[in-house]
């Protein structure tokens, strides 16, 4: 058993544990910190799979950006957690049954389908290839993504402005 197999299982365990806790822990603060564990596990999975640029992006955008946003959101809406108390989660049994059924259905579908796979490519840097693809074949999408980000962030700033009363 090679090191990469062991690493895959370690990071998969981190992801699974973090994901489970993020979905099931009653308090939303605990869920955000579990999400941190889950994201770091996913980062490790990317690294094991040889997607080095994506792994770095995952840390910078998710851990450095999205999770901090969530933490600020919880800070600014703190009274909700107090008001909801232990009733932050509802329909837990129905939700769990739905999740298990969904996972079972998807696993059956995956097991039943044949994917055309090539042998795993040897791990090498992906940054150069990604840059060439982004500014070559996918240049239009790249430009659209930047416009989308601009619109979304200006829209967010507009939404949170203080309303003149």
């Amino acid at each position, binding site marked *: 058993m090679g090191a990469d197999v062991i690493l895959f299982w370690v990071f998969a365990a981190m992801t699974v544990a973090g994901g489970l806790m993020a979905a099931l822990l009653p308090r939303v603060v605990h869920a955000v910190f579990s999400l941190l564990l889950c994201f770091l596990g996913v980062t490790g999975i990317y690294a094991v799979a040889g997607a080095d640029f994506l792994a770095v992006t995952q840390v910078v955008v998710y851990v450095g950006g999205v999770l901090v946003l969530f933490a600020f959101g919880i800070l600014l809406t703190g009274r909700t957690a107090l008001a909801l108390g232990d009733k932050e989660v509802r*329909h837990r049994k129905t939700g769990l049954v739905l999740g298990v059924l969904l996972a079972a259905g*998807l696993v059956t579908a995956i097991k039943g389908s044949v994917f055309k796979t090539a042998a795993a490519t040897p791990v090498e840097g992906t940054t150069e290839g990604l840059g060439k693809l982004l500014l070559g074949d996918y240049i239009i999408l790249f430009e659209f993504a930047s416009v989308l980000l601009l619109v979304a962030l200006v829209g967010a700033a507009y939404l949170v402005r203080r309303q003149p009363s």
Partner: protein
Amino acid sequence: MSIGLYHYLLLGTFLFATGVVAVVTRRNAIGVLIGVELILNAANVNLVGFSRYSGGLDAQVFALFVIVLAAAEAAVALAIILQLFDKRTDVDVDRASSLKG
């Protein structure tokens, strides 16, 4: 035992299911957002798995766009949640039903 495409897909399936459970069961709007992020990460794990076992980088470009979308979505959703909090002094998605007939 070696790692194959199926392992990545199973991990993605698991993350997707946990995300759906979080979206369905949480009452705090930020908890619902956490579920959405889990679902987007599930998609990314699948894409990286396909990229690894198909020999091309195109799937990773898609994963990058998913990350961009997730960042934009989180910013806009947080803005909406803060406005909701301003109007109602809580972000309980069960009680945010002003448009209900």
